[in-house]
């Protein structure tokens, strides 16, 4: 977005709307809209519907839902404010946007909580009906900002959204309270008009959603249409905006959230391995949606088990893996803490197991609905003893699908638990996703290879006789005749797997377990370095959900005439074999993280390089502008010449 807000641009081309009003259409390359309201106002639903409309229209998009942990905080208060930010564009974008261009505030609390993020001159739409003395007092407004001139710096449009919704639903048979609930659909209708969104999908959605309550479906559709028509006829909005579809590689696309993609990736992994998928999980924010999604896919032989606690969730998954299923457990940080001992059992018994940690703010209960990347060191080291295991992380919502398949490949091939680190931002954020063809997905059947014949010299089965290449032990499942064996948490004798307290054996087994995990690096592709100019002296390295903001920041730096390299780690343990050499090529390496420097600590320890650690733990993703400033400072400190300002004002 340029310094001049296009929403204020004078209409150039006029068109005639019903009623003879002259309306104009302005073309934009990108917009960031934030919808904010009370938790009960349905902002997440509205945002998701607008996202679906936008996705089906063909824009590239990125979303940032942001909601309180309380299901219903007191109405109209600051803690109860829920928001949904959507960035969509006619080109490829990487983040949900640093700041909104348009803020829709459904009440004074939503205004107060979000106004500071709206740059001067931005478009502000408020529901004027909600600016009552009582609601104003709840959030400490002495006078109404709609009347006291405090909103003069923004283009404010006060719309009586609630009363217009009620008017539209006169005769619907609904009571006032029920009818008022449709004001989010009225708002969605207005925005749909404003941004030329297709409306059929929302109407279909409402019909489907309320098929058992046709009067509610009808009311919502009526409110939605009324909002759309209001936009078309009102003088309050003289301009509507067009954002052309983004050029994308040919193919079939859908909109997908990280948790959805992860769940589908798990189903696909089971299918591609030929194994039944077993999920043991305990409900926890923000991971529960994976449990919900997987529980719908029983037709694929997916067994979901809602356990009595986090420990039972992972324990059941280990039991299922022992029986030959692809065992999975999903959770968030506090759950990983509880599962630690059982994950250690999976390390010791060397069974395939997928552990999904959708990270949130910590420690303890922390910030259940906010994102953070602070479980990396817990994933790496948070178990008693030397208990190495592979750790991988997806970089975007859609990438959660591929990460799940990769986690399954490693777990099955190497007979090991794998921790997959997603986070709250990836989990709830959404983006367009190119739907892959099922038969083009990695074939995992070769990684399964159940042992069916004794492997010992005298016809005995040796459960810890390793594959010389992968160091994986044989996976012999109950029901296989002649292969009966016992495994467990006590130290195993090499090859036989019998209990052993022998000092030399423990030393050997500890090193073998480490060597097995380290050896996974041999199966990884070379590290990709994104340095289009090829002459960067500064590299930015990240992992997980910071990919988008880091990428957007790097684009800004390059547009201002400087070079910067971007590396993003999918594999945190083991790290790619070439990583040390690559990092050594750069004068400075910057590592932005949503923790206090956990990857930086690992990189310093592993490669003895002086990583510049840049961190924040605000529960929200990085802003690209903030990262660009950090990168710029580091480049300046190495090469001396100050950079020119970004002429685009921060496009991606």
């Amino acid at each position, binding site marked *: 977005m340029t310094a001049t807000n296009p929403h204020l641009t004078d209409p150039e081309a006029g068109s005639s709307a019903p009623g003879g009003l002259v309306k104009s259409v302005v073309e934009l390359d990108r917009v960031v809209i934030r919808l904010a309201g009370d938790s009960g106002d349905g902002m997440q639903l509205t945002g998701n519907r607008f996202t679906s409309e936008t996705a089906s229209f063909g824009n590239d998009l990125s979303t940032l839902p942001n909601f309180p942990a309380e299901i219903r905080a007191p109405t109209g208060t600051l803690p109860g404010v829920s928001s949904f930010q959507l960035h969509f564009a006619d080109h490829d974008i990487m983040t949900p946007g640093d700041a909104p261009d348009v803020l829709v505030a459904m009440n004074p609390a939503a205004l107060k909580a979000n106004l500071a993020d709206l740059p001067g001159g931005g478009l502000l739409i408020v529901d004027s009906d909600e600016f009552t003395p009582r609601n104003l007092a709840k959030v400490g407004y002495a006078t109404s900002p709609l009347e006291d001139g405090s909103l003069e710096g923004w283009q404010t449009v006060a719309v009586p959204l609630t009363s217009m919704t009620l008017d539209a639903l006169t005769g619907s048979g609904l009571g006032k309270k029920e009818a008022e609930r449709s004001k989010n659909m009225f708002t969605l209708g207005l925005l749909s008009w404003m941004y030329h969104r297709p409306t059929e999908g929302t109407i279909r959605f409402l019909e489907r959603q309320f098929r058992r309550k046709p009067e509610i479906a009808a009311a919502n559709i009526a409110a939605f249409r009324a909002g759309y028509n209001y936009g078309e006829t009102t003088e309050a909005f003289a301009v509507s905006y067009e954002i052309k579809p983004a050029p994308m590689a*040919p193919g079939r696309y*859908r909109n997908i959230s990280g948790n959805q993609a992860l769940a589908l990736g798990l189903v696909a992994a089971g299918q591609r391995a030929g194994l039944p998928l*077993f999920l043991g999980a305990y409900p926890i924010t923000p991971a529960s949606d994976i449990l919900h999604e997987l529980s719908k896919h029983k037709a694929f032989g997916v*067994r979901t088990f809602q*356990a009595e606690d986090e420990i039972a969730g992972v324990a059941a998954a280990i*039991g299922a893996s022992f029986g*030959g299923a692809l065992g999975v457990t999903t959770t968030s940080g506090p759950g990983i803490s509880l599962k630690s001992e059982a994950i250690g059992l999976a390390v010791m018994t060397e069974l395939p197991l997928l552990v999904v940690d959708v990270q949130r703010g910590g420690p303890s209960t922390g910030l259940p609905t906010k994102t953070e990347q602070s479980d990396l060191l817990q994933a790496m080291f948070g178990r008693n003893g030397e208990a190495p295991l592979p750790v991988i992380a997806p970089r975007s919502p859609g990438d959660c699908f591929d990460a799940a398949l990769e986690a399954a490949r490693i777990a099955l091939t190497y007979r090991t638990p794998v921790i997959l680190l997603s986070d709250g931002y990836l989990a709830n954020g959404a983006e367009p996703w190119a739907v892959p063809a099922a038969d083009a997905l990695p074939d995992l059947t070769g990684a399964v290879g159940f042992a069916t014949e004794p492997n010992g010299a005298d016809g005995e089965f040796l459960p810890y006789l390793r594959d010389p290449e992968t160091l994986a032990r044989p996976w012999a499942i109950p029901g296989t005749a002649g292969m009966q064996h016992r495994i467990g948490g006590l130290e195993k004798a090499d090859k036989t797997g019998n209990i052993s307290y022998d000092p030399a054996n423990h030393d050997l087994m500890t090193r073998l377990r480490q060597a097995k995990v380290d050896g996974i690096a041999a199966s990884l592709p070379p590290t990709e370095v994104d340095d289009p100019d090829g002459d960067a002296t500064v590299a930015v390295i990240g992992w997980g959900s910071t990919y988008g903001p880091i990428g957007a920041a790097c684009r800004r730096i390059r547009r201002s005439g400087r070079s910067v390299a971007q590396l993003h780690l999918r594999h945190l343990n083991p790290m790619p074999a070439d990583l040390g050499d690559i990092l050594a090529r750069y004068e400075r390496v910057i590592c932005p993280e949503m923790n206090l420097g956990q990857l930086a600590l690992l990189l310093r320890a592993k490669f003895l390089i002086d990583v510049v650690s840049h961190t924040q733990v605000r529960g929200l993703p990085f802003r690209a502008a903030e990262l660009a400033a950090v990168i710029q400072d580091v480049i300046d400190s190495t090469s001396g010449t100050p950079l020119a300002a970004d002429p685009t004002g921060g496009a991606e």
Partner: protein
Amino acid sequence: MSTIDLGMPADGPIADAISASVTAQGEKQTALKAKDFKTDQEVRWCPGCGDYVILNAVQSFLPSLGIAREDMVIVSGIGCSSRFPYYMNTYGMHSIHGRAPAIATGLAASRPDLSVWVVTGDGDALSIGGNHLIHALRRNVNMTILLFNNRIYGLTKGQYSPTSEVGKVTKSTPMGSLDHPFNPVSLALGADATFVGRAMDSDRKGLTDVLRQAAEHQGTALVEIYQNCNIFNDGAFDLLKDPATGPQWTIPLEHGKPLVFGPEGASCVVRDEFGGLRIAETSQVDATEIVVHDATREDPSYAFALSRLSSQDLRYTPMGVFRAVQKPTYEAMMAEQLHAAGTGSPADLDALLAGGDTWTVQG
């Protein structure tokens, strides 16, 4: 084992592995002897431990079930009893403290074709693993849980356990323990367990009888086995074992038989005025007042009342099967849901990945 459709994948790697091994070995071997269930591992319990007796009893009666060794899995937690799987030539997992019922639940739910056993102790099952135990019981997962109760922590060398009597003097309770003990049978019945039994380690016949019924039960079966720890809690069950006192304080439970016990049948069980049960002198009551044991009662209150007859000093301890009722098992219901889902909409991965709303970008 059952021959009904258990929702197992009929093809794929699991089925292939099992059929390959069966082909290599010929038919499944089910005509077995006790020695076939022994392993080459040296049994490492203390000499004189009640665990030996239980191990022998289990190995001796298993052949009569007609289950192939490879179809049996024994999962244990931590504690002396949890070493059990190492001595059994079946599949086994010696897992972590308290979690065996949860591990077994995942295994049984995903492999209904297996005979799944849990071996646990009073500390393992009732303290650290209490949560998993009650939830396995309420779900009615098809597994047999053997709870070795020696009323002490043995492996950690003698602290009081959740079944130790109040006032127990141990290393961690020099002035006597303050905790009121669990009655494991009452606890299991409170969780609506479909099969609950109790047996004595030294009573080979009684133990085998309860174990067989438990093994044949479809659903979660809990058997509390009184087991003597001769090192840290020796003689804990002597009141019941001693021929001089045992008959007086033991109430043998036999389905369909009146609850008469004690020397010359001097004592019996009758109903009390609050709907519970009480002990009476047989000579003082009418024969029709004596309760006839019925383990199949749907309502667990009767079995619970039976379990409350005994005090923590073991007087009036019922031994045998308290409750054995039929309810659908967790894995059978899960298999049914999977089957129903598969019938409704055949699994099409491409359709799943595409979801409801897609758009196409032309090249």
